[in-house]
């Protein structure tokens, strides 16, 4: 393992940040402070963190409807994200986007997306931009197993492969597409196997194992950065919550969920690894969790105290202000 204790702690902390941020957002939804859909990423934290820990600040990330994890892993501030969920003007998107559209362009996090599969071609485009500029930035696109059925998967990856662009396509195969088990509506089990149609490497990894994700993504990022073209990574994972809040989850058994929660929690898995490696003590662990807890509590306070956008803001940001136009 070419991980250090420091990086390990950083990643561990990031996973907790995602977990606690979302659990709090969930709670705020039941309190009525957060409205709209909330697609919980809990259970899949190792994917976002394992991949994004290989990225530079100037690398691009594009997400999905389930992107709190992607945003936080790329470095977005939890308090501005929480404010966004509250619909406040201090939110990452000034309250105009909400959970499905969180973006932070200062971090080259080019946005979550409410349309399944809609980030794949744009990620390819961002990679084309780096290539045209001659920088070695890479782009990462996260998407679900459901998105692999969409034409945009085929067209977007096809173009990335054709131009050998620095882009990594990360499929989070959580085995469900909204309320439907994947294998009810898919014929091939492994999305990685589809890479053959694009003559690019396709790799399947255990998405609950942070180290494995980190290493496989690391190879892909390195290859991309050196001009070796795209990789399709499939991370086998699981969402601990329903598709979005209010989901009755009749399509899966509570035993199945329990089994994953108990034995396949990526945070708990990685905690054991850290402990085994002697990279984390019980005290450090408690401290990390406490710090994150405080951060999230502060995020809620910030969100609560922030103002709503004003009625005038309804009509701004449709087009750039006139003076910018040539």
């Amino acid at each position, binding site marked *: 393992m070419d991980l250090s204790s420091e990086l390990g702690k950083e990643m561990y902390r990031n996973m907790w940040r995602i977990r606690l941020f979302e659990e709090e957002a969930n709670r705020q939804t039941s309190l009525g402070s957060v409205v709209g859909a909330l697609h919980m990423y809990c259970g899949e934290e190792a994917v976002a963190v394992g991949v994004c820990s290989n990225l530079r600040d100037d690398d691009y990330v594009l997400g999905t409807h389930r992107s709190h994890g992607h945003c936080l892993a790329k470095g977005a501030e939890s308090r501005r994200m929480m404010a966004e969920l509250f619909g406040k003007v201090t939110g990452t998107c000034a309250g105009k986007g909400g959970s499905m559209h969180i973006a932070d362009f200062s971090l080259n996090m080019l946005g979550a997306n*409410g349309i399944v599969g809609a980030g794949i071609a744009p990620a390819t485009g961002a990679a084309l931009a780096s290539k045209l500029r001659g920088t070695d930035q890479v782009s990462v696109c996260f998407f679900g197993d459901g998105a692999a059925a969409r034409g945009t998967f085929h067209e977007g990856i096809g173009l990335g492969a054709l131009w050998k662009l620095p882009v990594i396509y990360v499929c989070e195969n959580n085995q469900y597409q909204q309320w*439907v088990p994947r294998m009810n509506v898919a014929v091939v089990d492994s999305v990685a196997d589809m890479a053959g149609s694009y003559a690019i490497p396709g790799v399947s990894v255990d998405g609950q194992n942070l180290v494995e994700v980190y290493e496989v993504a690391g190879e892909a990022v390195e290859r991309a950065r050196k001009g070796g073209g795209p990789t399709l990574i499939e991370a086998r994972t699981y969402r601990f919550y329903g598709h979005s809040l209010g989901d009755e989850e009749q399509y899966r058994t509570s035993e199945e969920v329990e089994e994953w929660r108990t034995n396949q929690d990526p945070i708990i898995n990685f905690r054991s690894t850290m402990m085994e490696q002697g990279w984390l003590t019980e005290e450090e662990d408690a401290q990390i969790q406490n710090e994150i807890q405080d951060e999230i509590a502060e995020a809620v306070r910030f969100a609560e105290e922030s103002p709503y*956008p004003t009625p005038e803001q309804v009509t701004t940001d449709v087009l750039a202000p006139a003076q910018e136009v040539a």
Partner: protein
Amino acid sequence: MMRTLTFTEALREALHEEMDRDDTIFVIGEDVITHGGPYKVTEGIAERFPGRIFETPIAEAGIMGVGVGAAMAGMNPVVEIMYMDFVTCAMDEVVNQAAKMRYMTGGQASVPMVIRLPCGVGRLLAAQHSQIMESWFMHVPGLQVVVPSTPGDAKGLLKSAIRSPDPVLFFEYKRIYTSRGEVPDGEHTIPLGQAKICREGEDATIVAIGPMVQKSLEAAILLEDDGYDVEVVDARSLSPLDTDTICESVRRTGHAVVCGEDSSFAGAVSEIAAMIGENCFRELNGPVVRVGSPHVPMPFSSELVKHVVPEVPNITEAVGRVMM
């Protein structure tokens, strides 16, 4: 009194009755079995009509294309697009295929397909889950565009849409799925292409679309206090548009306001307003005013949304303006 149903129940009943009547009808869409779709309209169909409902992967273009092909081969698909916003992923299939097949083949093809489109604001889901876009499909020859505003109309229009030999875009405003209203039992069809006068009046005509019909009726009551006796016409069918009923009303009242929930600019209300202006100019005593959303994407924050979606005061204000 007639029994009442919710809008959702009325749609469900129409589907069941039609599937019972004609076994060429089938349902296709995402999550339509496991969950009955996000609004549970297709709930119960899998049990009652096994093998006649298809739950798909996320592939709107594929779903729509399958619908077109099955329709050309003699079936009657009812396609559910989970949110109307996703029909953008299948526009070639709707616009270049379904709409044009009859014409391009010189009348040989028939594409008896209903495309159900849950639309408009519901829960706060922001710009990519709140669109309406009736005017897009109005503008495409070969398509029919239907917008029920009550459970009774929902049932009657869906049954007629299913029986139509040509494609119908069927708009279901999410906000009114849970609204209740009277719905006739059994056979009840409403011909496509007919508007409905919901309230008679002498001073001004409000032509309204979807949920704006109910709001217009509420506005009409408030306007009584100002001494205005307002007629409310539910356009119901946007294409073909019932220009006769609308113009007859406007000629009588001499004033017109056109209300829709979608943004007005190049929207459905623009066509109706232009048509009234063109046909009723001599009888109009004031401008034809449009009420709709401003030209902005739907924001997320509830504090912004409330300044986007038109409400009763926008209608009363508009009527006041045309009467000046």
